[in-house]
């Protein structure tokens, strides 16, 4: 039965029957469409792995290792260009002055020599 309130022209029964029995594509058509899809399919976009620089960076310990390496490189360059004209630039004068520590004072050395003679 059709609902006459929503089917004034009496067509809904025909429409619902047509929706229930739609023309269906054949398996052969689906196969042809799929063959076309394969033929027209763009080349797959390659999945990009880590680049050469990234892999080298990993070998050197990641960004932390690279940071240390860069600091050491800059320091080396600076030392080379500075030609160590004044080594105090490097040490900041911390080890510039030498202190003499008398581990065996003269008086004790003398006393020791005397003891040996006796």
């Amino acid at each position, binding site marked *: 039965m059709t609902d006459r309130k929503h089917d004034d022209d009496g*067509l809904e029964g025909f429409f619902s029957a047509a929706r229930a029995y739609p*023309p269906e594509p*054949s398996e052969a058509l689906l196969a042809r469409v799929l063959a076309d899809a394969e033929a027209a*399919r763009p080349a797959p976009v390659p999945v990009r792995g880590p680049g050469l620089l990234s892999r080298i960076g990993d070998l050197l310990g990641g960004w932390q290792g690279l940071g240390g390496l860069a600091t050491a490189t800059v320091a080396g360059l600076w030392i080379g260009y500075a030609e160590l004209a004044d080594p105090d630039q490097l040490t900041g004068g911390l080890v510039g002055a030498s202190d003499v520590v008398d581990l065996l004072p003269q008086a004790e050395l003398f006393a020791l020599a005397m003891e040996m003679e006796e």
Partner: protein
Amino acid sequence: MAFDAEDDRSDEALLALYGRGDAGAARVLTLRLTPLAFRVAARMLGDKAEAEDVAQEAMLRLWRQAPNWQGGQARVTTWLYRVAVNLATDRLRKRRGLPLDEAPEPVETAPGAVGRMIEAERAAALDAALMALPERQREAVILRHLEGLSNPEIAEIMGVGVEAVESLTARGKRGLTAALAGRRAELGYDDD
């Protein structure tokens, strides 16, 4: 077939995947969208062989469009309906010059086993009545009442305004009512 059309991903997402070379997306889209293109073409043309050609051509255009598909443009189904409808219309125009004895074989909408069922007979009667309608009315009625599209979407597919769609649909339904009036009792309708 070894694959099915059941997939949670949208047509647009699958088409984007296909555009990047995904073979699996092509299989899902083939099963999901080919019936749509074939259905509309078959109902507009009333000829299975021609409808298959139209559906295949419409799908081929979709494959070629995939790499350039813009995310913000029309839905994939709207685009495909428009292409299929236009291809079918072109064939109808070419067919007008053909003599009657070259008229195409009608589409069998009902499987043989259920051919006697009244529902299938009603479907066949409607298909025949649709073929008697002017093309644009037939197109509007198919998209509105058999494909279940909204008037704005049909307007986009047909390249006309919404009011024109409403007018075409209304006139098409009047034509169908007249064409089917004499067959209602035969098809199990009790109008008394």
